[in-house]
């Protein structure tokens, strides 16, 4: 039986877990999940967490910022580098996770729920999500992303 995450099944790829109740962009290492018809949550994946090791700071762009697809919604500071968090779809930042700003360790601890990053208001979520991966496409997309990063697996 697959591991459960709330009502979702967890998909395991090289030790990283991906709940199947949302969409992903494996290249940008983010997940998106609709909150209502035109607001989506965006966050980091467990693969991103494994690559980062530890997030030291999360700096979102201001609320009200219009962000084009492939542009940054915020910044994550790691011990030795900076990583921009990029959205695969255009939208307006309508909220950011203040708890993650105050304590970025919750991104490491729970990237799929308490550690979400921003909320985006999008025009056409139904159309936009066709560019993302979901369901049975999740595992092969992240398998390829991990291969490109020479990521052998997450240590438990």
């Amino acid at each position: 039986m697959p591991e459960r995450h709330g009502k979702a099944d967890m998909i395991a790829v090289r030790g990283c877990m991906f709940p199947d109740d949302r969409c992903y962009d494996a290249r940008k290492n983010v997940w998106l999940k609709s909150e209502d018809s035109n607001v989506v949550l965006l966050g980091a994946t467990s693969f991103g967490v494994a690559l980062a090791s530890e997030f030291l700071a999360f700096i979102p762009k201001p609320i009200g910022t219009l962000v084009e697809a492939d542009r940054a919604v915020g910044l994550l500071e790691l011990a030795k580098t900076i990583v921009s968090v990029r959205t695969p779809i255009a939208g307006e930042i309508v909220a950011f996770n203040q708890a993650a700003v105050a304590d970025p360790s919750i991104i490491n601890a729970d990237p799929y729920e308490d550690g979400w990053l921003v909320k985006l208001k999008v025009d056409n979520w139904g159309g936009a999500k066709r560019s993302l991966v979901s369901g049975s496409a999740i595992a092969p997309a992240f398998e390829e992303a991990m291969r490109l990063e020479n990521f052998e697996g997450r240590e438990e």
Partner: protein
Amino acid sequence: MVKRLAVLLWATNPERPHLCATPFVHAAAAAAMDVDVEIYFTSQSVLLLARGVADHIYPGPTQRQSVYSFMQEALRHGAKFFACSMAMSEYGLSAENMIPEVAGVGGAAAFIGRCLDESWRTLTY
């Protein structure tokens, strides 16, 4: 949100390696937020652009990343490097003996132009 940042390196030079990481980390952070970042190397800072210099200096006694790798990080996020022509002349630098990542020549006029343009923010190190 301001979308452009010009960084002037003036006191940052190879003789003060402990000052040489921060400007590039800040530039990388701004560029990672989709800010257009230009870094102007003036005075002795231009020596960081000489071939074989920045990759042999380290910002701290336990630091494994060379100054050049911090510069690369800023470049990777999209920052552009400009060398002051007066400083190049003073220190005998030319395109032939500078690192290839230099985007062009940009000195006092270029940086002051950014300072006077309200669509830009500036930082000086």
